[in-house]
Structures are given as structure tokens and as C-alpha cells.
């Protein structure tokens, strides 16, 4: 079955990490999905909402709905932005379009595992990789079991990475601690944010990771900023880039 999918590329990926958008698009196309990238798209409004100004974001939400109407699914390489659309678009009028959009917006990994049911992905990434489980994708979108909950252990991210040839996933001491990005938090609480980032990096270093990967580029942007400041060899890579390698 061929799906008609709208590709949403979050603003910071569009601006600073186009290669992640390209990898996502190519990966989906490789898997036989018909992908359209609506050119008028801007942002999901999360930076505003996260800072306490969701009422200012309503126009941005409506613009988003306008850009992404009429698709079977909307897919985005970000857990956090997907959650924003699914959960926080509740403050605008709930027309059929809005309801459909909220119900059919997917983060990339869960779209691959739950809708496309991808098995036997052809990818190769012969490196030691640590998984940073960004919080919104983990605890809100439930891409994997969270360490606080007493539940069956599962991970949609690992399910995909396990299909990648040559990859070695390193286990961390704290498997799902926050990296300290947190949107506005990174500038409102710069010291704690940076400390959390340094600690997250140290955990990956202790276990010999060459790369930190995640389904959220915003966390990786924060970690990359610290890594480059500290001049460390550890690198960041979005999961779409690994799955498309």
C-alpha cells in the first residue's frame, strides 16, 4: 500500500542540519513511500509554547495545519515536534482537519516500526553508537519503555538500529537521563543545562561510544555544541542518517 506522506522538517533541522532532512526524505522514498514536502511550512510552534506563549503560537499552529492538510500521514524526524502537534495543537479549533492531523502525525522511528513495519532494512554503520533517548520521544511518545515505569522493556529505536549491519550499540549507566536541552530551558538555565549535557556526554564516553544518536536533533545540537567547545572526538548523528547509510 502506498501512503501519501507529508514531510515535516523542523525549523532547526531545516536551518542548521539539512542533511538530516535529506536522509529522512531519501529513507522514506527508498521504502516506497510517496513523500511530499510542503514548501510553505515553518515550525510547529514549540519554541513559543515551551516558553509559555502558546497563545502567540496559535497562528503558527493554524499555518501548520494549512500546510499539512490532505495527507495520510505527516512524518517528522523529531519526537518532540511530533508530540507538539499531537498533544499541544489542542488550543486551536478542533476541525476535522486538525483532528486528522493530530491523529496521523508520526515521529520517523514509530512510523517505520508501526506503520511501515520495516524489517530487514538495508543499512550499514560499522561504529560504536550510544542511544540518547530524548525525553519527549521516550516518555510522551513512548518510543521505548522508560526506566521509571515498571513495564515490559521495548524500544522502537533499537528495533530499527538492530537491523543496521555492523553497528554496535553501547549500554549506558543512565539509559534515559535528560541531556538538558529542554528548549527554552537551555537559555533560561544555562548552567544546569550545560552540566546535564556534559554528564550525558561523559556517560557515552565512559562506554566507548564513537557516536551519540537520537531521534531528536535539538538534543544533539545542544550536545554537539558542548562537544565542539570541549574539542572532543565524540560525534553526533541523527538516527535517520544511520538508517539511510
Amino acid at each position, binding site marked *: 500500500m502506498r501512503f501519501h506522506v507529508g514531510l515535516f522538517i523542523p525549523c532547526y533541522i531545516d536551518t*542548521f542540519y539539512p542533511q538530516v532532512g535529506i536522509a529522512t526524505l531519501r529513507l522514506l522514498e527508498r521504502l516506497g513511500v510517496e513523500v511530499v*514536502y510542503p514548501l510553505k511550512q515553518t*515550525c510547529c*510552534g514549540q519554541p513559543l509554547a515551551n516558553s*509559555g506563549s502558546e497563545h502567540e503560537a496559535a497562528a503558527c499552529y493554524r499555518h501548520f495545519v494549512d500546510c499539512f492538510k490532505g495527507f495520510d500521514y505527516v512524518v517528522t524526524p523529531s519526537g518532540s515536534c511530533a508530540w507538539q502537534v499531537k498533544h499541544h495543537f489542542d488550543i486551536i479549533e478542533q476541525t476535522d482537519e486538525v483532528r486528522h492531523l493530530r491523529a496521523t502525525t508520526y515521529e520517523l522511528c514509530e512510523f517505520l516500526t508501526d506503520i511501515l513495519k520495516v524489517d530487514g532494512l538495508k543499512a550499514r554503520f560499522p561504529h560504536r553508537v550510544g542511544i540518547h533517548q530524548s525525553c519527549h520521544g521516550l*516518555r510522551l511518545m513512548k518510543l521505548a519503555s522508560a526506566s521509571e515505569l515498571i513495564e515490559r522493556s521495548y524500544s522502537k529505536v533499537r528495533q530499527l538500529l538492530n537491523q543496521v549491519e555492523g553497528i554496535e550499540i553501547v549500554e549506558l549507566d543512565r539509559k534515559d537521563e535528560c541531556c538538558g536541552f529542554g528548549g527554552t*530551558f537551555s537559555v533560561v538555565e544555562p548552567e*544546569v543545562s550545560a552540566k546535564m549535557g556534559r554528564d550525558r556526554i561523559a556517560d557515552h564516553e565512559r562506554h566507548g561510544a564513537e557516536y551519540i544518536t537520537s531521534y531528536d536533533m535539538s538534543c544533539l545540537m545542544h550536545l554537539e555544541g558542548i562537544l565542539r567547545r570541549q574539542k572532543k572526538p565524540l560525534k553526533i548523528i541523527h538516527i535517520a542518517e544511520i538508517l539511510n547509510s
Partner: protein
Amino acid sequence: MTAHAKCAKKFLADEPRADWHDETLWLVRTKRDRAAAAVDEWEALREQASQIKEEALANLNGLLKQFEAEATKNGAKVLWATDAEEFNRIILDIIRQHKAMNVVKSKSMLTEECGMNAFLLKAGIEVVDTDLGERIIQFRHEMPSHIVLPAIHLKKEEIGATFHEKLGTAAGASDPVYLTHAARLHLRRKFLAAEVAMTGVNFAVAETGSVVVCTNEGNADMGVQAAPVQIHCMGIEKIIPRQRDLGVFTRLLARNATGQAVTTYTSHYMRPKPQGAMYIVIVDNGRFKHLTQRSYASSLKCIRCGGCLNTCPVFRRSGGHSYGYVIPGPIGSILAPERSRAGGIDLPFASSLCGSCSNVCPVKIDIHEQLYRWRQDLTLQRRTSFVKRVAMCVAGFVLSSNARYNFAGALGRFAVKYLPRFLLYLPLNVWGKARELPVPPRESFKQWYKRSHNQ
């Protein structure tokens, strides 16, 4: 910088110490995980606890009346306080009425909230906190930095120095066994001399009119058994409907707090001792009003286990005192904007919204959702700073139009690429203090897409 961010910066200035604080509390979190995992029905238990609390809060007036009637039947005197002032006065009156001079108190966050120790001290009555951690910070004239582990911010060497000064322990001694022994001897004397013993309350059972106090040191019992007069202080939200509900909470509380299967002492107080007197003081102090706030009412379900503090990556790296409110950490950050006299408006922003608190909470308070909601409401109520509101208006304007968005993005890429480093990393650039800005690519995704799809 917000007040919390400033305090956090100070806390982090001693990084090894901050690491120690983080690791100590992470260890508590790990123990909690193990204890919780040993209970197969853990998640069902949380759901049940949450529902019982919802039920209790929905029927609060009726349950409080029932509790009062039952407790009175048992021979306790039930008193009501609208606010901190009235509460403190009631306690002072009871103490005076019984002509008491020596008062001991086991842990109660409510009395901290109402500033009772300071109030009584002014009236010439010294209250001795008998929980070891509380006694330590009382000696040091500090606030608790944690609701379950009040002295967790201190190292054993610092406690040794305090005990040397206050209790005459050997200079330089920091062996916990030795120090605890000294504290025990000291507190024994206080227990034996006390005419009035105060306690906090973990649960008040409406059906039986009894109050339940959980401690690890048995200090509530030591106080209550030795003193003729006992006073139990509780907020209105401590009510649970039935005796059989209690087991749900005692199974969750200790496991979630410290990883113990149960607190060492779970004391049930029902009636006064022969020739003794038992008072139960029920305090509102803003709680009833808080309950009328639909989005925030469920924060009153809290059983003060401290689990959300231990798991919070921000709390572990900024310390309890950085919150400037009697209840620190995630739960404090959703209580403070409603209840703190200081305002507490920076606290909902002192979170990365990682959501770990809500997952840990044994009564399933949606803490991260309430943090998010507070951010919106504080902005709407114009309680956040003007500058920030303006910046957000501008961002809202930019992000709602494609043309404006593209222009801003291009400007950003251009700036990072061409502005000299000293301009980019001006002190105003908070991001750049500890982090590099991303390397700007040649073109945005959108530009690439247009180019490669001939649009």
C-alpha cells in the same frame, strides 16, 4: 537570569560536590527502581493510589467532617486553622494551656511551610526537631533541602563539625555511627523532658479518625509516648477515606522514597494516653483555593515521597535550596506559583520538561504537564518579564509566515557564518557560554529541496 538559575550556578560552581549530590540522589532513585520492580502490580498500585486520592479530594468536605466526628469520638480534639498565622497561634495556645516549656517535633513539612519554629521561638518556646536530618539543619539554622532527606546537601564532615560545636563530639570526627550515637543521646534527653510532642501526618483516615505517621527513626513514637500532650498537624489533603486504603499508600510510599519495602515505623494514633491530651490541627493555608484551580488541583494528591526530587536531573544538579520554596523540586515548582509568598514564578521554568517526575510519582500527578501549564498561565497573567513576552510576540509573528520564517533562517545562517566570533559569543549569547553554535550549512533543507526538485 532567574533566581533559581542564579542559585543553581552557585551550586554548580563546586562541580565535584554537585556531582556527589547528583550521584547520591541517583543512587536513591536506583534503589527505588529496584524496590518498585519487585512489586509486580506496581503500576496498578499507582493507578489505585491516584484514584483514591482523586476520590478523597473530590469529597474533601464530607471526609473532613467524617474525620472530625470520628476523631472526636475517639477522644481527640480537632482544631481548624485557615492560615499559617492561625495555625501557629493555635499551637502556641495549646502549649501555653498545658504550661509546657519543652516541645519536641517529628518531621512535618507543614510546620516548615508555616514558619512555626521561628514563631514559637519568638514566643520563648524552643521546639526541638527530633528527626536526625531536621535536627542537623536546625543546629545550622538552615532550611531543609529535601522533603524526605532534609540534610542531603551536607557532607558527613560538615555534620561532624556542627556536632562538635553543638554537642561536643570530638573535633574532626565524621564517622556516621559515632555521630548518630551522639545525636541519639542528645535527643533522648529532649524526649524525656518534653511535655508536648508534635508530629506531622502522612495519612488521616476518615473512617476511623486516626492519623498515621511514617518515620524511619521512630522519633514520632518516642515523642508521643513520652510526652503527656500530643499534637498532630495536617494539611486538609492528607485525608484518605478508608482504613483499607492505607495499605496502598504504605506500600508505595517507602519504596518510592528510599527503596525500602516499608518505613521502619508506621505509627497509628487514635486516642490520647490515659491522663494525656491529643490534638489534631487541620490546616488550610491556601489549599482550598488551590483545589479550585482545575489544572492544578491534582498537585494536592502528593504524598511527599520525594521521588520526583530524586529523579529530577535539575534538582540533583541545583540542590534543594536553589528553589527558594519550602517544597523544592518538581512538585514544589508546581505548588509555589500558587502558594509561595515569594511568587515562585521562575520555578516552572526551572525544568527541562523531561517528564521523569510524572513517571515516578506514586499518585500519578501530571507534574510536567502542570509545569507547562504554569508557563502559559504565568505569561497570560503577565507575571513573567516584559522583555520575554515581547521576544515571544516577535517569534510568533515570524513563525506564522513562510516568507518571514525563511528570512529569519537565512539571517541566522548568515550571522553564524560571517559574524566575528567575539560578536557571536557576546555575553548576551547565553547559548554560547558553554556551547558552540551549530556550523551553518551552505543551504537550508528547503533551499536544497527546491533546487533538487526544480521548484
